[in-house]
Every structure is written in structure tokens, then in C-alpha cells.
């Protein structure tokens, strides 16, 4: 059920009967944006995208139109469109409903990207755990091909485009764009040295557009209604709406489509129904596990890329993780570090060793075997990683820990008498 504060653009077909079928899609403006785009020049499509101020929904928030514009269309090599459906960032579960309930919207967005950069082949890289979504997408691709929206000479326009899914096999790092391309090439998911960026040398070293599921999903609405229309839904530099995944200690966790710039307070207390059991808010991770924590003093921050960055964190992938007063922040730091340690690809030294030793130190500390100097060491270890690693995973691992040590030092100190104070209270976390 839609929340009244939601602005449902890319989720507008969610909840329709048989929403994943092509007939439902066609009955609700499906592939109309494609028909329109087929009559536009690539330049015009990219222009519309730029006007929309759509920023990548995968985490980094890079303007999508700008990215498409970097692809050298005159290159003699084939160009590829790749969709990042790896959705691995803890706290993030918004690409799932987009594929589950409206797979054709995604296909349509990818097709339009293909038109914009003159590509004839797309791949959707879906994390291995999402097998049922691979099946849904495969079915949708077959349907689309059956109705002439994929394959040769699409809708008689002369435009050819093939699309296929590709399964991951358990690796968060494969969500990082260059690691994803390696994985798509059948290799270990180790990121690449950049530059060159994928727009110039991506899949099979060919120019490649790579965006998140949600980014592509927003494209049909932008083309149909115009970039300006989309832009105005959000704030000046943050066009449109996005799916926020509320999780943790809110009363009504869920995935909500909200305009960019909605204040955090409204998001937690109105959309999310406030803190479960009427407890107090302690901390919020605003953009997936990789982003530094915010505290109640940040409740008035508008949730858009720039404002959250100004508050010292990132809007990231839109995973808003809410923590109440009984949460042990040392435990949070430890659990996040365990995750990054598990997922570090191991390629570069500071991430491989940093996550490992940080995990060991925090585990010992949380278990009550820490000494005062360990608190500083944990922070230093994280600082030693920050900005020094091969890819942003190292930063992602470092930033939350640094912010927790800084803002919750007192909770670390409370662990110095031999046990976790929150576990004593009966709370596990």
C-alpha cells in the first residue's frame, strides 16, 4: 500500500495485478517511452537525461546523462549497456521490487540507453542470490522479444538490441562497476585500474554504459514526461524521486518512493512510523552500510545527495538503517567490519589487511577484552585504510567505523569493564 507521502513514478505499477506481465505493462504506458525515443536523436535523449538531473542510484550519485555523454559513439568497437543489479549494499533492497514487479520498465530504460549510445547488446548483472528475479527478467525479456521490443529491427525502426541476464555468485565487490565487468567476463571480481573508465573501455574493453537498476527504471518516465518535469520532482541538483529502503528499528520498514530532499525526520517518523516500541532514536545510517552514521541532531537534513554530504555522510544507495537507543554501536561497527572483511576482494593491501585486523580488534573489544588504547587504534586502523585503497570498498569499510568511534567513544569506554553493556540489558545488538 502506498504511503501518502510517496510520489510513485517508478513504482507506479507496483501492486497492479500481474504487474510483471507485458500486458499489464502495455496497458499502463509500457514501451511508449521507447516509441518516443526511437524517433529522437541520441543527442536529444542524452539532453533530456541531463535536464532531468537524474543522479545514479547505485551509490555514487553520478549524473546519468553526463555518463551517457562520455561514451564515444564513433568508436569502431561495439558498445554495451550494462545494468547493475548486484544490490549488495547492506540496508539496500530497492532493486528487488523494481525487477519483481515491473521488469519491463527496466528493459525499456535499458533499451533507451542503448539508443542513446548506439549499442546493440545489454546485460543485466543480477546477484546470484536473486535467482527468482533472474527467472522473472528472463521471462520478461522473452516476452519483449516476442512482441518485437527486443531483437532485430525493433518496432520496424531498424534498431537492433539484444538483452540478457547474467548471474553473480556471491560477492559484494562485484557491485563495484569495474569488478562487475570482470565478473561478467568470467573472472574474479577484482576491480580495474581507472582510468580508463567503463564509458571508454568497459566490457571486453569496449565503451560501456553502466548504471544501477533504479537509474534505468527512471528513464522511461523521463523520456515520456520530459527531463524538466522529472527534475522538478526533486531539488535543484537532485532530480526526481528515489526508492528509499527503510530498515532497522522503524515501525514500518519498507521500500518507499519519495522525492529527493525529504527531511530525514519526516522519513523516519511519518513514512516509517517512528521508532519501534516508542523508543528513542540513537543513530541512522542514511545511505547503505558504507556511509557514516548520523545522529538525532541530523534529523532535519534533507535527504538528497548534497545535503547529506554536507552533514558528513552520503545518500549512497538509499538504504536508511535506523537504530534505537538500545543498539550497541560497538557491535554495529564490528558487524559492519565483519561484512567488509568477508567481502574484501583481497587485491590491495590496506583493504585486505585493514578489514581483517579491524575485525579482530573490534571482536576482541566487543567481547570485553579491550583496553583503552584500542579505541584510538581502531580509529587509526580505519584512518590508515581511508583514501589509500584500490577501490572504494576500503573507504566504505573505514568511514562508518571512523564515524562511530568519533561519535560514540563513550560506548567504547563502557565496554572496558569486561563486557558489552547492552547485552547486559538483554538486547543482543
Amino acid at each position, binding site marked *: 500500500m502506498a504511503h501518502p507521502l510517496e510520489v510513485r513514478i517508478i513504482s507506479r505499477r507496483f501492486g497492479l495485478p500481474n504487474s510483471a506481465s507485458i500486458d499489464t505493462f502495455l496497458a499502463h504506458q509500457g514501451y511508449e517511452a521507447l516509441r518516443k525515443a526511437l524517433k529522437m536523436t541520441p543527442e536529444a535523449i542524452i539532453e533530456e537525461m541531463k535536464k532531468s538531473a537524474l543522479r545514479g542510484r547505485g551509490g555514487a550519485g553520478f549524473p546519468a546523462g553526463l555518463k551517457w555523454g562520455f561514451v564515444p559513439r564513433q568508436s569502431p568497437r561495439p558498445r554495451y549497456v550494462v545494468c547493475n543489479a548486484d544490490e549488495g549494499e547492506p540496508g539496500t533492497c530497492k532493486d528487488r521490487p523494481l525487477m519483481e514487479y515491473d521488469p519491463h520498465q527496466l528493459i525499456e530504460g535499458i533499451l533507451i540507453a542503448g539508443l542513446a549510445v548506439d549499442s546493440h547488446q545489454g546485460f543485466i548483472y543480477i546477484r546470484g542470490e536473486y535467482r527468482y528475479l533472474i527467472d522473472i527478467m528472463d521471462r520478461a525479456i522473452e516476452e519483449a522479444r516476442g512482441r518485437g521490443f527486443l531483437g532485430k529491427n525493433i518496432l520496424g525502426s531498424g534498431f537492433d538490441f539484444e538483452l540478457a541476464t547474467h548471474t553473480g555468485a556471491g*560477492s559484494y565487490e562485484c557491485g563495484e562497476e569495474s569488478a562487475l565487468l570482470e565478473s561478467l567476463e568470467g573472472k*574474479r571480481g577484482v576491480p580495474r*585500474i581507472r582510468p580508463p573508465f567503463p564509458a571508454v573501455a568497459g566490457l571486453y574493453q569496449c565503451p560501456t554504459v553502466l548504471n544501477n537498476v533504479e537509474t534505468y527504471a527512471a528513464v522511461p518516465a523521463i523520456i515520456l514526461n520530459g527531463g524538466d518535469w522529472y527534475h522538478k520532482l526533486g531539488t535543484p541538483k537532485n532530480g526526481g524521486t528515489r526508492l528509499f529502503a527503510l530498515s532497522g528499528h522503524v515501525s514500518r520498514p519498507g521500500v518507499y518512493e519519495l522525492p529527493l530532499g525529504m527531511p530525514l525526520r519526516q522519513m523516519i517518523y511519518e513514512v516509517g512510523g517512528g521508532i519501534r516500541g516508542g523508543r528513542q532514536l540513537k543513530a541512522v545510517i542514511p545511505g547503505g552500510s558504507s556511509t557514516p552514521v548520523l545522529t538525532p541532531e541530523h534529523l532535519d537534513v534533507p535527504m538528497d545527495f548534497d545535503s547529506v554530504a554536507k552533514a558528513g555522510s552520503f545518500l549512497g544507495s538509499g538504504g536508511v538503517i535506523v537504530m534505537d537507543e538500545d543498539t550497541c554501536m560497538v557491535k554495529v561497527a564490528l558487524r559492519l567490519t565483519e561484512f567488509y*572483511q*568477508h*567481502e*574484501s*576482494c*583481497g*587485491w*590491495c*593491501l*590496506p583493504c*585486505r*589487511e*585493514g*578489514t*581483517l*585486523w579491524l575485525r*579482530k*580488534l573490534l571482536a*576482541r573489544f566487543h567481547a570485553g577484552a579491550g583496553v583503552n588504547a584500542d579505541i584510538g*587504534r581502531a580509529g587509526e*586502523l580505519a584512518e*590508515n585504510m581511508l*583514501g*589509500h*585503497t*584500490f577501490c572504494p570498498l576500503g573507504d566504505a569499510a573505514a568511514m562508518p567505523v571512523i564515524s562511530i568511534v568519533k561519535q560514540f567513544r563513550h560506548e567504547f569506554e563502557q565496554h572496558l569493564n569486561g563486557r558489552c553493556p547492552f547485552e547486559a540489558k538483554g538486547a543482543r545488538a
Partner: protein
Amino acid sequence: MTAAPGTLLIEAARRAGIEIPAFCYYPGLSLQAACRMCLVEIEKAPKLQTACTVPVSEGMVVRTNTPKVHDARRSMLEFLLTNHPLDCPVCDKGGECELQDMVFRYGASFSRFREEKRHTDEEKWSPVVYYDGPRCILCYRCVRVCNEGMDVSALAIVNRGGRTLIGPNAGGHLDCEQCGMCIDICPVGALTSGSYRHQARPWELHYVPTICTHCGDGCKTTLSVRNNRVLRGNNRDQSGINGEFLCIKGRYAFDFLHHPERLTQPLVRQEGKLVPATWAQALRAVAARFRQLLEQGSAFGIIGSNHAGNETAYLLQKFARAGLRTNNIDHHRTADYAALIAALARSGVRPADRLAGSRDLLTARAVLLIGNNPTEQHPLLAWNMRTNVRLNKGRLYVVNHRAIKLERQATATLRIEEGRAGALLDFLAGQTTAGQPPALQPWNEFRDRLRAESDLLVVFGDEIKGDGIARLVAFGNTLGGVTRYIALGDYNNSRGASDMGLLPGSLPGYAPVEDAVVRARFEAEWNVTLPPGPGLALDEMIAAAGDGRLGALYVVGANPLKRYNLNAGSSFLVVQDMFLTETARQADVVLPAAAVYEVNGTVTNTCGELQRIRQALGTNGPRADLEIIGLIAKETGISLGPVGSEEVFDEIRRLVNGYNVAMAGLAAGEAVPTAPADGRDASLGRPDLVHSSGDTLFTSGTLGQYSDMLEAVRRH
């Protein structure tokens, strides 16, 4: 500071004398940016950048010496030391470890993190390679040198994150060329060698740079010696023609030196059995017989070595020609160098301009490889060809009757039937195009591609010899550019043996023995009259010895009876060698000889590059070939002049065509090209005698049988 466009920051800095520390960066191998040691501050970049991946650009401002950079380096070292076992006192790499050096220079002598270290047990991957996981710093050099440099891909990265390790290809074992490149390139003691591990500390060793005694490529190897034993061979300073390259033989197959079956005393046949004798007894026995035969006017046959240095070869032929008055002298010819030089000279080009050096293979725009399997038989030249394709975009064309590994680098490959090389050469040189059977279509295409190349470097094995070489040169001359050649011969001094005149038809430097002018020159120098006509070839000498036409056969460092039969006792057989070979077993007198690693002198590799060999060990019992020949001559009453290696080499420089090289380079350990110019006639007439032994990476003629390491690897 200025640098060529595209130069990596780390290289540009190094060239300007600014050291930027690095583990994973390695010149010539792909970029990794994994160790993060090279982080530097670049103006306008928000974060520190890796100097190993960023190319220099106009106006770039870089700081390598700021507190931020120092902190980053110290952090990286601290991370390394957190897990690295601090077992330096018992680590083979102690004293020559890049991690030790780095810590010494950039601080962080210990880690503040005191959690338990990760542990994995040391693994034996092959007789050559051992891996100690906890010491590994994951710089991936070994993986890259194996994949990119060797094209073997026997190593891979396994697991991920903190459990990442390097793994071998064959279920815990290494199935590979066992070159040991991975060991040498490892900056720490994670990869160690079966021959050296737990043997010594580097500072106790005495280092002797010399030339590998195995194949014809002539790699420099530095022997690490302690207590008159060689403990390892390597080329860590990357000097010499091979740079950092060595194959298993150059690196590990020195152990024949210490083999228990090594001959240490002369043996003299008494009542049908070889029994130990003193040097004096043995020499006297040889000299007495030689004197007697000389007085009787009996004929001698002399067979020389592919392994012994130029001085030995030269002195041996001088002894034969001037002392024993015979041109019955030969050696196992593994390439027809004489025919190549003659064919070039006859076709009107200067041979010296057309004989390529080993390093030319690194830069040649196009290489045509006919026959041979350099991966097995010429590991260095194969490395150079691969490197050329990989780093310099050189094109490689391969013709062979079987599949060879270098085809993987080839631009085009032509498979021909065995024995059809000659026909192909005629085709390549010819004009025929019309009306050919469709089977010739690939030949046509191949020829068109070769003709489109401007300069070609042709490398060929024993498939092409005698007249075939003349056809090859004829083809080369049909091409537009400057065609150059390398003839592939097997052993460390095959080329030298040939150049020095261990041939029945030519004097040193390929002058035909019939050439009165040249002969007169040697006669004047040696103060003798020389036999004017060609002598017997190798097989003819053995046949003649067998039926009593030769009074004596003197074999120095060769094992012809492995291949040919000789009727026992039919003539007096003297064998000078390191082991009791098939030939030595039939000898009347066996003289224990020093190995190449035990003498000074020079050798010439198959490309005609002259290099110095140096004595690494003293011998107790065996004597240097030069000394033995000198002693025999003296006892026999023949004057050979001075027989010290330097004096003989002086004479070589003076008298052997092409060997009048500058001394400075040679003395400094460089490889100096020789420049043969003569070769007016290749009328040796016996191309059938030219054949390669077809050694593999793990064999080396007779010598290889006495290397336990090679034996262990063959069994592995």
C-alpha cells in the same frame, strides 16, 4: 623534470633519482596498484594517487616527500608487518628481502596491532618451488611473471580477502617449466627454492658471475658459493644478455658439479679394466703412445666439445693441426653456422651485418621462426620472442612440423610436413603463384605476409642446414628490407666450437683448410707446416678408429659413443671428461676434467655473442682442459706456446676472424658480438652431421643426467 609522454610517474621519478617505494610495480609486467606503497600527492587530486599507474602529464605537480605520503607508507608497512611472520633470522630471504629494506628505510619496525596472525603451513609445490603463505605479501609478481613473462600460467590467486593466497596449478603441485622466475622475483621469502632453502645466509656467500653451461643461449648466471660448493644460481642484478631471465638449468642445474660420480682421478686401462692412476702416470701413458704413433706416421682423430670454452676448442685444434699434423678434427655440430656465414658471404652481404644478436629478438618488428622448439631448447630466446610480442608488439611467424608453444604468440603459423622445410624455402624464394594446388594456399598467404614485412629476423633450427641455408638466404634476399638470421645450436659453446675450427674442413674463423693464403698465415704464427686437405668428419673418424686406420682417438668433453659404435680396443682412445660417459667407459685413458664453472675463459653463444666465464670453484683432482691439453703436448714433445686462458684468448683475438673484439666490454662482463666475415666456402659437405640433440627444459645432453635437480623434476 621532463619525461616521454606516457611514462609512469614512478619510472619518471626513478630516472630522476627520486625513489618511490613499490612492491607490486615491476617494470615490464602489468600494473596492479595493489600494494599501495607508491602513493604520492598530486596537486589537484583529492586523494593520494599511485605513482605506478599515473602517467606524467604536462605541468603536473607531484610531492613524494610530504607527511601525508610518509604516513601512508608507514601505514602500508604496518599492515604488512601485522601479518608477516617476523622470522627474518631463519628466512632464506633475510638480508636480501625487499620488505626488510623497506622497513629499514620507511619506518614502522613493528605493528601496533597484536591480534593473532594468520597461519598456513609451508607447501612444497615441486622440487624447485616451496611456498610459505604467511610470508606472502600478495604483490602478484610471481603470478604475472609466470603468466605474462613465461606464458605458463601455473600460478593463480586463490580465495579472497584476508584468506587470499597464491596457488599452484596441479592440485597442490606445480606442473610447469620449473624456471624459478617466481622465486627470484618474489620480494620476500614466500617462494623459496628447493636447492637453496635453509642452506645459507646471503652474506656468507661468495658470488661469481659466469655463463650458464647448458643451452646455446648463453645466459649470465651468478653462482653463490660457500665452502667450494655452489648453493644457487641466479641473476638478481639483471645484468647480462638475459636480464632477469634464467630457466631451470641456469638456475638450478649446477649440481652435477657435486655429483658423487664425478671423476676425480685419471683412469688407465690395465688388463682390460680402468684403474685409478696418478696424473703423472696417465699423462705419461698418453704421451708415450702419441709419440710412438707420431713416429710411425699413424693418423690421429680428435673430437672436441660443445661445452668447453673457446680457449679449449682453439688449443685443441691447434694441438691437432700443428702438433698431431691432422685435420681429422670435428665436434657434434648442432647448427650449420659455417654454411650460414658462407651463404651470406656468397650472396654478397656482410655476414656480420646479417647475424642477429639475442637482444635483437626483443626489438625486431618481425621474427620468422622455422623449426626447433625454443621454449624447450632455447628458453632465453623464447622469452625474448614472447617479450617482443607482448611489450613491443613485434610479430612472430612460426613454421614447424609440429605444434610448439610459441605459436601462442604467433601472428601466423604454418604447419608443414616433416622434412619439407627445403621445399617451403624454394617456394618462399620463388615467384610461383599461379595454378597452384589449393594445398599451397596457406603457403601463399604466409609468403605474402612475410613479404609485407620490411625487416625480418629469421631464426631456424637444424631443420635447415647445408644447401637449405643457401635457399634460406636466397629467400631472405628477396625481401625488401634487411633480413637477419640466428641459427639455433644446442650448447653453451656450440658456436664457439665451430668458430674455433673444430671442423675437418676449416681453420679457425671458417677459412677452408685448402686456402693457401690463410694456411700460410697460421703456419707462420705456429711455425709449422699444416696439412693442406680436409680431414675426416666425426663419423668417419669413428669408423676409421674402428677398423684401425686411426692410431688414436682423442675425445675432449664429448660423448660420441652414445650415438656411434666403436669396436673396442681397435685404436688408442683417450677421453677427457667429467664423468664416466659411454665414451669414457671404452677409453684406454680417462682424464678427469674441470667443468665450465671451474675455469676461466670465454664462450660464444648461438648468436655469436662472446662472454667471459669465470672460475667459481677450485678443483681437487680434475684439471682444466687447457691445462691437460698443454700437459699432453708438453709430454709428447710438442710446443704449443703459452696455454693460460688469457694467452690463448689473446691468440684467438689476433687470429680468429671475427674475434678481434674490444676487451673493455668483455672484461666488464658484457656480451660482445663477434663478427665473422670469411666463410667463402662451406664445403664441409656433410649436412647430415648437423643435428640437434633435441634437449628439453629438463635435459642437457650427457651433463643433464648428472643433475639431481633435473632428475627430480623429470620424476615430479
